[in-house]
């Protein structure tokens, strides 16, 4: 009985993960190679051409998603790092208050948050409407339905996921190590560049992973804040699955997206060095 305990404890979760995580991936792989339509049904024909078709039609949106996701990730890193740095080293006894303030947006639903951005950025909304009324902006000025709005929305929505891991890494930096650098006559810049920054890299790595993947695959920001020229791969996959009921194309696109993201992560991990990756994964 004692030896069986862990298996009994793990059994329900195993079943859930097997039936609803592993099997669906296999189902999606299978559907991506089928042909047919929603009315007559689909049959397995091993049509690898589904992938070529899907990519031929939607490579623009796939590349655009990677581009937007990449831009947003870089923006989050640049915007977020100083915040994480300041809270970790200068936050003092109020660290948890700052972190709580950063997490405040998560008490509002993701969808509603994004829509509120739409409110703020609306052509005649509180911000631009007022500025236009004062004659500070030209009447045809707009941000909604542009790349700036979508990338800005992605940056806004995922920023805390960049700040937190970097903060955790910086928080673990022993202040005495930095102190030692100063004692050895390092300038503030040198101490940061040669001591603090390398020690924070695992946090940066985790932060980039936690933001790039969901930002690239996000359909909400492009739908709410973007125009017809900002459609991302997430919107296409949703439309193909849910509106067009074109399951093979949609499955092929989902698999391609996942493969591209995995390859991207792999290249990125290699570029940063395996040690950092293992270290980041171990945390």
């Amino acid at each position, binding site marked *: 009985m004692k030896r069986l305990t*862990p298996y009994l*404890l*793990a059994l*329900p*979760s*195993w079943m*859930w*993960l097997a039936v*609803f*995580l592993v099997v*669906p991936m296999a*189902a*999606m792989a299978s*559907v991506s190679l089928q042909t047919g339509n929603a009315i007559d049904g689909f049959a397995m024909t091993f049509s690898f051409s589904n992938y070529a078709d899907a990519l031929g039609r939607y490579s623009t949106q796939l590349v655009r998603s990677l581009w937007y996701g990449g831009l947003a990730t870089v923006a989050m890193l640049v915007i*977020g790092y100083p*915040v994480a*740095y*300041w*809270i970790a080293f*200068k936050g003092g006894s109020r660290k948890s208050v*700052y972190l*709580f303030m*950063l997490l*405040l*947006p998560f*008490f*509002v*639903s*993701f*969808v*509603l*948050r994004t*829509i*509120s951005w*739409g*409110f*703020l950025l*609306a052509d*005649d*909304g*509180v911000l631009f*409407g007022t500025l236009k009324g004062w004659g500070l902006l030209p009447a045809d000025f707009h941000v909604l339905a542009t790349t700036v709005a979508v990338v800005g929305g992605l940056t*806004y929505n995922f920023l805390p996921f960049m700040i937190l891991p970097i903060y955790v890494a910086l928080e673990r930096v022993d202040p005495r190590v930095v102190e030692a650098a*100063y004692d050895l*006559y390092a300038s*503030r810049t040198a101490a940061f560049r040669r001591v603090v920054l390398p020690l924070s890299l695992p946090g940066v790595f985790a932060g980039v992973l936690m933001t790039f*993947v*969901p930002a*690239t*695959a*996000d359909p*909400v920001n492009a*739908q709410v804040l973007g125009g017809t020229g900002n459609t991302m791969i*997430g919107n296409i996959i949703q439309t193909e699955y*849910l509106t067009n009921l074109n399951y093979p194309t*949609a499955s092929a696109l*989902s698999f391609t*997206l*996942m493969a591209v*993201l995995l390859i991207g992560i792999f290249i990125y991990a290699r570029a940063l060095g395996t040690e950092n990756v293992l270290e980041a994964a171990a945390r």
Partner: protein
Amino acid sequence: MSATTLTRRPRGRLGDRLLHAYTWLIIVWLSSPIAVMILFGFNDKKSKSNTSWQGFTLRWYQELFDISDLTTALRNSLTVAVASTLITVVIGTMLGLALGRHTFRGRGVTNFLVFAAISTPELVMGASLLSLFVSANLPRDALTIIIAHVLFSLSFVTVTVRARVITLDPSLEEAARDLGASAWGTFRQVTLPAVLPGVLSGGMLAFALSIDDYVVTSFVNGSTVTFPLWIIGSVKTGIPPQVNVMGTLIFGIGVLIAVANAVAARRRRT
């Protein structure tokens, strides 16, 4: 003496102040949509769109449940969140105990699956579940939403409970057994109270993830509409102020629970 101090602590003051101000700027930026949401729940709007301020009213709080589809969507969201949280907490805690306390065959694979479930993009998770349900000819309704929500919250509960179990001293349980407690009695009176904070925070996380989810749900909902789905669906026609009010209330309750939890945790420590 002053010379050494200067070299050891080169110019800090101004940079620190700038960074302090910058941190607050980012906090304000992150919170601004919340302010907009709360404010426009009080907007006495006359036109169809709710984007410009037209005066203060409490009307939308009185007429909170007047849009029946919206009320149904909110009720669906709450039902799904409660059901999926209960299932997730039970099976996730069991898995967390197994991973944190026992060594067994397949532990590595299990850890990998837990990690995979966290890192799979929501879009891919939703798409693959729909592929399964379509292939198996399973109709989509509240049940399939609950299945999906358990799947994406499971790993979070498991990881939180596992972290708590690892810090637990096994000799406490051995002492209970030595004093004649049964296996079940030991679990109920020693293990469970010790891991309870982990179970509770995992459960709160699962509830929050469930009530907030749009992407996965949009694939597996069939004709059942949840709160986030209803909101997205009404973007084109204009979001009614009742949505702002519901968002404000959920925000208020969430913040209250989080603050109460933090205060309780601090009190336990001292």
